[in-house]
């Protein structure tokens, strides 16, 4: 049996008493699934081409300016070809990939935010409730995560506080931050929107924050993948591709 997603998704469905383990329900809406897949591809292109661009000058600075004679807070070797786009050093091609993917990524995020606001996804599934924020509840969730004890039954359809927190942080924190720091590196955008330089403390600070944010997203990606594997990769991957999710029963 498959529930109608428009009336019965997320928490609302979870509140129904007839949700039993083993039942196949609609888990993720089409907008979420489309954006998720599109975003995964774009972030992959942006990360690998970004490393290719970084390789042209693998030093990071704080402040307005910074070049070889100035103190760098981080100096790295070039990233190897298996993780850069293209696979050989080409600042030109890395830039073309990066600057073509970046606006698509930014407008897709904006569209997803507006769409999710409109269809109630944010209010229903991501917004924090008073009960989510009680210290006891948070502590319980941390303990459950640490013991890899995942919710079963209808509770598996709700995002818990750590999930909500990390999705909110990524969608409304890290992704906008990486877009804005990217724009701050553009001399044309500095003339158009000079406040960007004041917000991030200069072009080289923005470049450093852009780099750190990219690796924060990689950290999120690794934890996200680990959780998918631990929670049951088949069911989770089916849910994000087709939207259908089997309500998990008790686990040993």
């Amino acid at each position, binding site marked *: 049996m498959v529930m109608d997603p428009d009336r019965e998704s997320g928490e609302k469905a979870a509140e129904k008493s007839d949700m039993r383990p083993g039942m196949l329900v609609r888990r993720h809406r089409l907008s979420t699934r489309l954006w998720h897949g599109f975003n995964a591809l774009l972030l*992959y*292109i942006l990360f*690998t081409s970004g490393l290719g*661009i*970084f390789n*042209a*000058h693998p*030093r990071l*600075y704080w402040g*307005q*300016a*910074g*070049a*070889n*004679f*100035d103190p760098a807070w981080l100096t790295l070797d070039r990233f190897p070809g*298996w*993780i*850069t*786009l*293209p*696979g050989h050093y080409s*600042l*030109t*091609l890395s*830039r*073309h*990939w990066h*600057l*073509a993917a970046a*606006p698509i990524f930014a407008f897709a995020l904006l569209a997803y935010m507006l769409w999710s606001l409109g269809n109630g996804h944010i209010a229903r599934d991501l917004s924090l409730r008073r009960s989510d924020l009680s210290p006891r509840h948070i502590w319980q969730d941390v303990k459950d995560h640490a013991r890899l004890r995942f919710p079963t039954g209808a509770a598996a359809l709700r995002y818990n506080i750590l999930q909500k927190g990390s999705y909110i942080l990524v969608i409304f924190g890290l992704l906008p931050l990486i877009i804005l720091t990217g724009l701050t*590196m*553009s*001399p*044309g*955008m*500095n*003339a*158009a*929107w*000079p406040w960007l*330089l004041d917000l991030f403390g200069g*072009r*080289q600070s923005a*470049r450093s924050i852009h780099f750190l944010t990219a690796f924060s997203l990689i950290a999120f990606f690794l934890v996200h993948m680990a959780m998918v*594997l631990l929670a049951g*990769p088949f069911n989770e991957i089916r849910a994000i591709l087709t939207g259908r999710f089997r309500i998990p029963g008790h686990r040993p």
Partner: protein
Amino acid sequence: MTLTRRTLLLGATATLTGCDRLVRNETFREALFSAENFHKWSQRHLMVRDAMAREFHPDQISPIFRANGTANPNTPAYKALWRSGFADWRLSVRGLVERPLSLSLAQLHAMPHREQITRHDCVEGWSAIGKWRGVPLRILLEGARLRSSARYIVFHCADTMGNGQPYYESIDLDDAFHPQTILAFALNDRPLSVANGAPLRARVERQLGYKQAKYLMGIEAVDTLSPIAGGKGGYWEDHAGYDWYAGI
């Protein structure tokens, strides 16, 4: 299900090789490279025509202004000019103008100046702040009476790159008439050094470093860029596929 580092590596390499193959497809390549048009269009619409690049305080000037690209043109003609302290050097202003000019360094010094402390952004990622003094390009273009058919200003340079091709760059009239677009003869209160483009270089402050042509010999007003050298409007644009619009 075991995902070893090796499978991940193989997967990443396979996907990236696929991307590399895509780039060799002419249509895909053109689509990828056309992002430049979006960036130019959107930036030009987000800013007023004379939106200014950030200007900095004297205490923010980089201790050493990194020079990049050609460090010395080293051609016999350039060496002869340098030996005479650029007394015999002339800047030609030609092309689609009603009154072509030939200007000495002394004549440029006698014209109205602009001084600006701005950030130089290399396409590689680094930045350096320097104080430039020079003649606004607008003054030269008005003096030479630019024809209405002119659409671009081309900077011709004294340096030839590794393959014997002369360096050149070009900008459109939005940037040519921008108040911060100057032909600079001084950096940090000293005459321009050879490494930084003596005797004269362009400053186009809303674009990346490769647009800031050094060792200027002539500026030419044209209606199209395609007959010049490789036709893409600049040395790096022709030889390495850099974007002509370098605002990003």
